């Protein structure tokens, strides 16, 4: 089980256990939900204001659906904690961060130091995403 969470947020962690997307629909008081790869993240969009934690499960790191789920939530204004859970490896951290994840609960522990190094892999980025980093094209053409 997950025992080590790397968290890059200043607020207090949510204590509630995450429920499944299906269960979440029936529980008006739940504040934490867990998305599996096959779930449609858009189902959560009407409820973003009462969510404090969304866990996105990566049963295998090769399944990249969670990256789209994360971006969709952030693009629609979700500001709570977005946690990548499961087969989350060092070499995926920087892309996950770019897609909006701000906490990580990997099956195999990753040190905070290694994580910081991974986030610094790319000195620049070619795409605008949801992490606020300016794309290279924006730097080339300052408004």
């Amino acid at each position, binding site marked *: 089980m997950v025992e080590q969470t790397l968290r890059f947020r200043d607020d207090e962690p949510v204590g509630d256990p995450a429920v499944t997307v299906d269960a979440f629909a029936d529980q008006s008081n739940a504040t934490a939900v867990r998305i599996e*790869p096959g779930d*449609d993240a858009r189902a959560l969009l009407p409820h973003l204001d009462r969510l404090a934690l969304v866990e996105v499960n990566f049963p295998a*790191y*090769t*399944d*990249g*659906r969670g*990256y*789209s*789920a994360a*971006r969709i939530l952030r*693009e629609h204004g979700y500001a709570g904690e977005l946690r990548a859970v499961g087969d989350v*490896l060092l*070499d*995926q951290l*920087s*892309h*996950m961060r*770019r*897609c909006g994840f701000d906490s990580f609960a990997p099956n195999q522990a990753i040190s905070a130091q290694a994580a910081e190094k991974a986030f610094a*892999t*790319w*000195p*620049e*980025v*070619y*795409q*605008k*995403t949801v992490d606020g980093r300016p*794309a*290279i*094209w924006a*730097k*080339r*053409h300052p408004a």
Partner: protein
Amino acid sequence: MYQYDQYDQAMVDARVAEFRDQVERRLAGDISEDQFKPLRLKNGLYLQLHAYMLRVAIPYGTLSSRQMRMLGDIADKYDRGYGHFTTRQNIQYNWIKLQDAPDILADLASVEMHAIQTSGNCIRNTTSDQFAGAAADELVDPRPYAELLRQWSTFHPEFDYLPRKFKIAIIGSETDRAAMKLHDIGIQLVQNDAGEIGCKFYVGGGMGRTPMIAPVIGDFVPPLQMISYLEACLRVYNRYGRRDNKYKARIKILVHEIGADEYRRQVEEEFKHILTLGLEPPAAELERIKGFFEQPGFDANASDELDLSDPDFALWVDQNVHAHKQPGYAIVNISLKPVGGIPGDATADQIRLMADLALEHSFDELRVTHAQNIVLPHVKKADLYGLWQKLDEAGLASANLDLIGDIIACPGLDYCALANARSIPVAQKISERFADLGRQRELGELKLKISGCINACGHHHAGHIGILGVDRKGVENYQLLLGGCEGADTSLGTITGPGFNEDGIVDAVEKATDVYLAKRAEGERFVDTFRRIGMAPFKEAIYAKETANG
């Protein structure tokens, strides 16, 4: 040609550093081969049958002489003195040591090159028309758009773990020289009635074990929304493409299973949302990139006169030289298909010679074609004879472009861990059987393509004559397909019937060409005759002998 600025350079340098770290962790045993595999694949490093293979990206097939020379030097320094140009306009080195790979990437980075995303389930190197910027029939030069695409697709954080690999081709001419409709996404730059340029999106084509021709998904996407439309296409695929079965994971299966209309509806919905996010690089960025692709300084007084008194030169001009949009200039195709050779292979010396010739005669530019040949795009006609003589001395003047000797073949079982059968020896035998150039020219345009397994890297589905190597109870067996075609009239080949052994397939090909010669009507290519008369006469001739001999 596009040139890196400090940002582009920083990105490839970062990749070299990252990969060096990954290799060190692997060599030290900190990560397992299972964990390392997807990391090295993202850098185009495959473990093949005998050694590591490194696939180097050649974005939209375009190279400067400095880059080409480096490819030759790498072949000498780290490989066995040759390289293999691929059907995706890239180059592969087949005898690489793992510990050398970071140094090779560093050498590549020193000439603005890399091996980023030449493998793995991500967006691969974008391909394009090898005559871009030179073709007489060009509407828009696709290279600036291809460069925009290169940058957008490089380390895209959302689309690095797609269900399967993803290949994009972009063209700007009516004539499709990039097999665009056989890609996951093919983009054709078109003009509407108002004279505006737009992107026509074909989505869901591909070869492999389930070949499909891509349907039109976006009719006319404004160029300054191209990236947003791509984001939408990819996001729908990333979310809903099948992941339960690797063989059904390409986007063609998704588009086929839900239907082009439903896929289009989902893309349009996503596109509407994405347009609100401001993800598109501004017009100024496209203009900046276009500045690198301005027409070279052509000599306006260059003559169209050509002395064709040397018959061998005249043959080469007729077969390998194409019309250029600039009077007095021509496009030169260098065939990497000498009789009995390995399709797409070039020695380090040949690679460096082509680099020198490009510098001297072609405004410092070369292209790699998906047919595994090299193009010098801007050669003054007055220089052609001298150029041809130098090519001839180096064994690079085979006058067989688009003829039966201009065979496309994958590396096959001689190198590839996925292959079921060897491709190279079959290509060599066919090339030798049809060695006589007069005979090849009599047969006219005839595209013969060989794959050593159903993954179809040798594009056998799109060959006028296609050959597929399979494994039948431990014995290599070759199936014959007829009637495939790429380009505007894209079609997929049909299998003739039972397969053949290595010599049998060569005989079968010859019999098929005999049928064509006997039945063709005036002006018909092999594929035209096949389309008109159908499979039956070919089948009859190909399988007749066994019956006759009892």
